[in-house]
């Protein structure tokens, strides 16, 4: 966890320095704001990882001498298969078509998206697939 935190924090620090130099020197706001946001985007997860890395003991994947048996047990919850990513993707497609060809495309678009929302939630509770 510590290496991950350090990567993000040092990237953020670099962007911060670069942002300060650039903004002070160029007085151009768009790039300055975007680099500042880039810095925040690195600091936010980076400080979260850093906070945790000082409070938790090293995970097996952070321990250079870990044996495979230390990783045994429940890794996570993985769905077998699911139709709802496809449904949501089609919904997004129709929403984009609504931007181009006419507002009525929002009806199937948002309908499919809502179906995916309810379906995926129910599926997450129920388990199973398709």
């Amino acid at each position, binding site marked *: 966890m510590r290496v991950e935190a350090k990567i993000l924090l040092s990237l953020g620090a670099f962007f911060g320095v670069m942002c300060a130099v650039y903004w002070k020197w160029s007085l151009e706001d768009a790039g300055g704001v975007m680099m500042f946001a880039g810095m925040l985007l690195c600091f936010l997860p980076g400080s979260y990882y850093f906070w945790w890395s000082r409070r938790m003991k090293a995970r097996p994947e952070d321990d250079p001498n870990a044996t495979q048996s230390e990783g045994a047990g429940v890794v996570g919850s993985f*769905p077998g298969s699911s139709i709802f990513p*496809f449904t949501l993707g089609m919904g997004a497609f129709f929403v984009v078509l609504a931007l181009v060809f006419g507002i009525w495309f929002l009806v199937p678009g948002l309908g499919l998206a809502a179906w995916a929302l309810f379906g995926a939630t129910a599926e997450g509770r129920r388990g199973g697939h398709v």
Partner: protein
Amino acid sequence: MVDLITPPPAVLDEGHHEHEGHGEHHGPTGILKWMTSTDHKVIGLSYTVTSVVMLVIGGLFAEIIRAQLASPNGTLVSLAQYNELFTMHGSVMIYLFAGPFAFGGLANIIVPIQIGAPDMAFPRLNALSYWLYLMGSITMLMGFFTAGGAANFGWVAYAPLSNSINTPGAGADLWIGGLLLTGFSAIFTGVNLTATIFYLRAPGMTMFRMPIFTWNMLVTAILILLAFPVLTAGLIMLYCDRHFGTHIFSVAGGGVPVLWQHIFWFWGHPEVYILALPFFGMATEIIAVFSKKPVFGYKSMVFATLSIGALSLGVWAHHMFTTGVVLLPFFSFMSLMIAVPTGIKIFNWIGTMWRGDLWLSTAMLMALGFLFTFLIGGLTGIYLASPPLDFFTHDTYFVVAHFHSIVMALVLAGMGGLYYWGPKFTGYLLNEKFGKVQFWFLFIGTQVFTFPQYILGLDGMPRRIAIYPHSPQWKTLNDWSTFGAILVGISMIVFVVNVGYSWKKYPAGDNPWDAQTLEWFTTSPPPHHNFYRLPQIRSERPTWDYNHPEHRSLAHGTGGTGSHHEPPLANAVVGVLEHDQDHDA
């Protein structure tokens, strides 16, 4: 839930019986499997196939463009059609081929296996990424079937050319919409890759033992998260300008047209590295394996990748030198700085091959071709980082040749990646003879089509023109360039023929290349959750350590001793996965 069981294969079998209806034998088959799968290997294969189709479509556009330019007053396409063609050629190749091929295709398949993970961290999100990418691609290409034709403002969509007065019609809106969808798909893939690499590594797989390809994908994913939201925001602003009467990019309402260029290139230059870094990673893996050596300078390779990622956020305006409103010394300096980590990488690639036991397979030839072509593209990039030279060559064929050297190097590396990793996820090798024929066509074709363009650019031929003045020299050079493009086209045909010819003909086995990293430890193709067993991970090349105990790698990050005490695989067991079905239990 059971914690430890030996022998490991029994664990998964038992799991299957316990949870009826799960796993590859019980899940849906056929087209339903393709539509509903959340397995990263199936999604990655869909991504790879789709992006290769996009490569062929974009390549056809390129061939038409080159055929048009073979004579000064070409009449193959009209001027308006030519604008559509070069716009869609760039858009298809950059948005729909190069990025998705790398971070959606090969990375999606390979990264989880390389770090010993059972799947991507968010499998449903991964599937959603693919559907957004596919529908985004279709949306963008739908422009050709509208009355006004496809988008025709160049792949960069500069304001004010891209506003509703200069570019009316549905084609441009479809371009924006398609890009919104593929942009979100890239962002989701970035989230997925970062979470997978941070949270799903196997025990002992510390960050500094991850293969270079995985490292490069991590930096790529972080860059995606930094850059793509900016593009998405910019596209929404552009859409508002076109349809809702805002004036963000138009002078008339108090807006700033050059703001679009800032936003676009703030995404666009990190995007160059989002495209390039995965292919650097592929070349690194291939060169190490076919030199039978560990990667030379592993840590410097990692830090070079990180520095490229860090610097890439501060160089965007070197695409805008000639606008006259950017800070030339800052951007010139930062752009030149990128040559340092890139130089370290090239040094390390040569160091990896140095005194190695070279095996010139197709994959290795492709990686060597990448190295050569990328070096040319990189060096001409250093010229362009200097404002005086850029003023001279901006928007000429010199720039076109520069980035085509780069992207054709990436195509070479990507083809190498297919020859190298294809056997892993399909289970079958490709024919090496056809592969070598393909390599020579692709490699020679690339040089033949880019070199005349460098000269044309220095001679002043502007890019994006369909007809040019009668001049014997320009005609000859353009003819050579067209000839090279035809060679590249033939190489793609050879590739397709090879895939057809080798279809399920040469079973690969688990580890056909005597490779080093974890993905070659499992079967080809890997089982549903990738591993039946894992070796002890004590270095960045666990499979090599297991297969060659007498030539074990020096361990990274073990703090000296304690790494070689137990034989590998002494306690090999697998983690049991909890499936969704367990929730109601």
